[in-house]
């Protein structure tokens, strides 16, 4: 046996997954409450102790290695700044999301003093400053850089805009305490997306600085470097599972949905190009591996936001047909928001949670997938497509606490499917649904950095 340990310092739990690299299986998992406020190692030690106790065949001296990720202490929070909302602002947002961050603040065009104050007051870990294509507008990004300088922002800034503005901005920042990083433009040409370098630098800053600022650095004494934010690990796992590795075939285009207490994350791997000839693509290029995060869709923290998205009448449509209970929707949502550790005890409470999960799933997919619009032209009907066409997606994989422990998880996930009242949304047609029952996706994303083939083989066995 050759145990390798994957550690995830999550917002609530520190989770350890032990895999055997010789025979590609999960030896066991354990978890303990994350203790980032005191000493992050306390939680880790407890989880480790539990793992060793339950799996005596793992000895501390035969562990072949560690990899770790973290989303503790609020995850990685970023601000995205760009010029036009649909273009460089969107490109900047996608770079942040693709790197596993949460985009807490977004600014477009020239920043005002008020906006800078808002940015200063917010609890942000990294700022991504974009604006202008290469050779395009540079006046706006320079203006925004000046504003950030005036405010003496003490957050690392990634400059990812018009390359012609870089010299001026570097001159501005020289001699100040501002920590900045220059990467290639996130939108070098109109509608063209290039987020690779920005993503790499986000990860680098996360490893070098953020981990320390959040008090997780201590853990590195025992387990080596924490290499990425947890959501990025999930995205990497999805990418590997889709693409395959060497002779180990992948699953092709797929989608991963993670319904959490505060957010619903959707990841898709695939080009999402139009499936018909009379379709014209609109808007910014889509990333091959796309992640969206919905901050108003969650089971607990954001539960009371749901009624601003769906009406009471619409909400009732998400209950099962045989559900006889007359649910008090507003009250039940409020209760979940007030008690975020609420666990359903009765069948009615379970049914209500299922309905919330279905809404999170349905609405997040509406926002994630591409849309078509019909235009009548003298040459007949043509279609605009904005976003990805995901109608041919083959697999949808559910992960996150609500889904993996729910007997009806597959039923909940069926709400990703194309429906008659959302005809213009390019939703999946009828994909196979798999559940991450052992909760291993983020761990496998981590493992994929060193042992991609093992990670792929394990995922193919454990996603059911």
């Amino acid at each position, binding site marked *: 046996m050759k145990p390798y340990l994957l550690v995830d310092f999550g917002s609530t739990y520190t989770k350890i997954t032990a895999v055997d690299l010789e025979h590609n299986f999960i030896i066991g998992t354990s978890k303990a409450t994350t203790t980032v406020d005191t000493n992050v190692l306390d939680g880790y030690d407890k989880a480790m102790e539990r793992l060793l106790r339950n799996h005596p065949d793992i000895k501390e001296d035969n562990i072949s290695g560690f990899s770790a990720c973290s989303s503790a202490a609020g995850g990685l929070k970023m601000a995205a700044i760009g010029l*036009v909302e649909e*273009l460089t602002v969107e490109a900047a947002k996608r770079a942040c999301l693709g790197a596993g961050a949460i985009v807490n603040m977004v600014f477009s065009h020239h920043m005002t003093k008020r906006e800078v104050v808002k940015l200063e007051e917010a609890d942000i870990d990294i700022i991504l400053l974009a604006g202008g*294509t290469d050779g*395009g*507008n540079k*006046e706006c990004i320079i203006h925004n850089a000046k504003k950030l300088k005036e405010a003496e922002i003490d957050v690392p800034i990634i400059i990812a805009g018009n390359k012609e503005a870089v010299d001026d901005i570097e001159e501005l920042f020289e001699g100040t305490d501002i920590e900045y990083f220059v990467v290639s433009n996130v939108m070098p040409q109109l509608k063209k997306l290039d987020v690779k370098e920005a993503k790499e630098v986000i990860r680098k800053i996360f490893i070098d600085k953020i981990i320390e600022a959040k008090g997780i650095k201590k853990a590195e004494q025992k387990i080596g470097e924490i290499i990425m934010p947890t959501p990025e690990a999930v995205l990497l796992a999805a990418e590997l599972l889709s693409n395959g590795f060497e002779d180990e075939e992948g699953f092709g285009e797929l989608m991963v949905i993670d319904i959490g207490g505060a957010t619903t994350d959707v990841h898709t791997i695939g080009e999402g190009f139009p499936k018909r000839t009379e379709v*014209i693509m609109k808007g910014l290029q889509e990333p091959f591996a796309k992640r969206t995060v919905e901050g108003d869709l969650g089971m607990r923290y954001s539960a009371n936001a749901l009624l601003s998205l769906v009406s009471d009448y619409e909400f009732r449509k998400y209950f099962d047909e045989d559900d006889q209970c007359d649910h008090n929707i507003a009250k039940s949502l409020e209760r979940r928001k007030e008690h975020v550790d609420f666990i359903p005890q009765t069948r009615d409470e379970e049914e209500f949670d299922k309905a919330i999960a279905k809404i999170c799933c349905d609405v997040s997919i509406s926002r994630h997938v591409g849309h078509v619009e019909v235009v009548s*032209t*003298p040459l007949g009907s*043509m279609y605009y497509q904005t976003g990805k066409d995901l109608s041919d997606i083959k697999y949808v994989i559910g992960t996150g606490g609500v889904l993996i422990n729910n007997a009806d998880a597959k039923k909940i996930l069926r709400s990703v499917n194309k429906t008659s009242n959302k005809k213009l949304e390019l939703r999946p047609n009828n994909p196979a649904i798999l559940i991450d029952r052992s909760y291993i996706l983020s761990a496998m994303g981590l493992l994929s950095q060193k042992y991609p083939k093992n990670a792929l083989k394990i995922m193919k066995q454990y996603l059911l």
Partner: protein
Amino acid sequence: MKTVVIGVIGADVHAVGNKIIDYVLTDNGYNVVNIGVLSSQEDFINAAIETNAKAILISSLYGHGELDCKYMREQCDEAGLEDVKLYVGGNIVVGKQDFREVEQRFKKMGFDRVYPPGMKIEQALDDLKEDIGI
């Protein structure tokens, strides 16, 4: 190098002239940002903002150009593009109309250059050099 945004406005899918304009202007030293057919006013404007374009060249061949171009100047001004030159050309109105009148109407709408059907791009090229340089 000066940047110009070109495209075909409205529900118009005529792509050939658009490609010719792209080719000739690029060949003459312009950085051409071609947003293609079926483009809305917002598409032209957003492209011009991000790329710092000096002129927007709108093509329309299917007769609805006048409707599609309405308030284009005002929208540009609103978006901070007061200095961007607006060109329009093609079959920009319904039916056969006196071009001088058509030109007057479009100029009143805020377009800087207006071209009749069958006009060669080389003519516009000379105007472009005069208006924004190379």
